[in-house]
């Protein structure tokens, strides 16, 4: 698509939203992330690409401390959100996660109704004042996630009875409904058909106007289409990180090049 215009826009938004410095992640003895430093800019879409198992999800989870929930997981290094260390003792991970939302790789709707799935975030964060307002948020979130038409007649059916792609979009709607400042998306489109994918990409583009988005994807095309900056991971290392256009057209590292040129997805 239009890599050039996107790159240009990216340059205009230079504030660093998240700065990760020398991050190491261990699962027990396994060293899953090795010395990774990445700056996530505000109002920018950053894509993480790399072969399966290279640590993309792991690194993504360190950004909103979701790895706190894995007992054996240990993080070293600094991650600053708006200049504040998110691993600082004073930081409340809950507040952090309200700011840094997440869509998981495997769709995981709550075993509740579709409506309740989406309404949950706004409810606990007190984002709405009335039922009507809440309805509105639910509707707009579902619309943004391109799910509204399919589920508008069965908002009170269980979310777990949806198809795989629908579930994934439900999870996206759920994340969007809390209007986070940063949205981490772990392969949000992998279960989606092209049309839904296009809609989600549109959504990402829309979100970028106000927030910053980090997206893990296996589709090089998708990375090229939606992101302004791309990070390439390999075996736990950050191999290359830079403007998307540059990474795809002129990779510096031979590993990046060989990964990119095997472009198939």
């Amino acid at each position: 698509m239009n890599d050039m215009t996107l790159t240009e826009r990216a340059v205009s938004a230079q504030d660093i939203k998240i700065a990760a410095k020398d991050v190491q992640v261990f699962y027990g003895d396994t060293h899953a992330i090795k010395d990774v430093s990445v700056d996530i800019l505000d109002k920018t879409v950053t894509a993480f690409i790399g072969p399966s198992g290279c640590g993309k999800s792991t690194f993504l989870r360190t950004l909103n401390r979701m790895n706190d929930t894995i007992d054996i997981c240990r993080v070293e290094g600094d991650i600053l959100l708006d200049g504040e260390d998110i691993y600082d003792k004073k930081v409340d991970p809950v507040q952090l996660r309200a700011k840094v939302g997440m869509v998981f790789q495997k769709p995981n709707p709550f075993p509740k109704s579709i409506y309740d799935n989406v309404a949950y975030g706004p409810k606990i964060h007190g984002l709405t004042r009335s039922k009507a307002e809440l309805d509105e948020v639910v509707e707009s979130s579902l619309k943004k996630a391109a799910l509204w038409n399919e589920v508008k007649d069965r908002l009170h059916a269980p979310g777990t009875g949806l198809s795989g792609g629908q579930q994934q979009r439900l999870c996206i709607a759920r994340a969007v409904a809390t209007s986070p400042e940063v949205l981490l998306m772990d392969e949000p489109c992998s279960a989606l058909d092209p049309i839904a994918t296009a809609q989600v990409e549109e959504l990402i583009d829309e979100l970028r106007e106000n927030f910053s988005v980090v997206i893990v994807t296996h589709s090089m095309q998708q990375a090229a289409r939606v992101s302004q900056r791309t990070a390439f991971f390999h075996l736990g290392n950050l191999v290359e990180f830079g403007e998307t256009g540059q990474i795809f057209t002129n990779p510096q590292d031979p590993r990046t090049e060989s990964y990119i040129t095997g472009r198939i997805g």
Partner: protein
Amino acid sequence: MSTASTNSSLYTLDARTKRRNAAEKRFRLYGMAAVAFGVLALVVLLSSVLGTGLSAFRQTFLTTEITLDEKALDKSGTRDPEVMAKVTTIGYAKVLQNALVDELTAKGLLPEGMKAKDVGGMISKEAPAQLRDRVLANPDLIGQTITMNVLANGRIDGYFKGRVTMESAALDSNVSPEQLQLAEAMRDAGMLDLKFNWGFIFGPDASELRPEAAGLGVAIIGSAYMMLIVLALALPIGVAASIYLEEFAPQNRLTDLIEVNISNLAAVPSIVFGILGLAVFINFAGLPQSSPLVGGLVLSLMTLPTIIIATRAALKAVPPSIKDAALGIGASKMQTVFHHILPLAMPGILTGTIIGLAQALGETAPLLLIGMVAFVRDYPGAPPEGFTDPAAALPVQVYNFTQRADPAFIERASGAIIVLMVFLLAMNILAIILRRRFERRW
């Protein structure tokens, strides 16, 4: 490697599939057999209980007319209840006995040579007390002729229920075949009949001399009070402790200690909880003995490990992806637990509660030491004061009944068990309905 099933028809089963299907069938059969075994055991137990116990709900009553003689009952003639109270039930027993003899003679039912004492022996020893209460409540009855519907003696009742036969009566020192024949004649004359016995459900316990009058009222109230306390204490504390241990506690020595402690408490014999209750609640805290309050506290402590173990297992079974989902949109741990994990774990929690309460409801041993295995005839008051009044409990009543010498108590013990199980069922139905609502696969 790729030879297994190529080109074989789907309609014919290959040998291996047959074997596996046979194994499948066997496995399923084992399962069915296991359920059947359990249900069968239940049916056997229940039918033996029902078989012996149902008759406890019906009782033989005797109707007779009594002329209340002033000479016997109010010598002073003042009709002053305080003076009249001097006449004890022994005096009233004589009045009853004479009245019955007179009536039988009048009807021509009295067999030759039967002693008045034997006739009187056919009336329950509860009857004089009833009559006395009635007269003292209304002294003006004296001089009048009233109709009394009173309990018949337990052996007579046993005859109509098939427990006592002419042959056994011949050997029995407490009843004679003549009395039974008379009883039959009286039944034909409409003086004796078998009726539903509300007194068994609502009346207080009675001594060994009057099995026919023994009831469960005090025990039911006592058990109800205790279950209220157990439910109010053990469930919230148990669930709270489980939540802490499963979701919040760091893995360290202290939590290990707590964990081992809890499973160990489940293995502590219930009587030891009685020892604890005696030492802590009665001797140290000075709470009154024989009271449902202490009983409830002891049973709560005893039930706690069961509820905690069940709850923790249920919490553990909730898939972590649900937790991730909630945390990922910025729910706090507390919110995650209370909004998502707890509802999903609810069936298991309710199961633990059902089993724990069932155990608490049926337990006697710990009550032994805190004075609840007792003969209590006065109803405890209304809560909250009633929690500290002496009371019995249903399992205690069962235990007491089974220890008594008179065979009439056997049916009452089974009857008490039936009441206990109805009680349990009533408690469980709510939990079971709730559990059904929470159950779902994801």
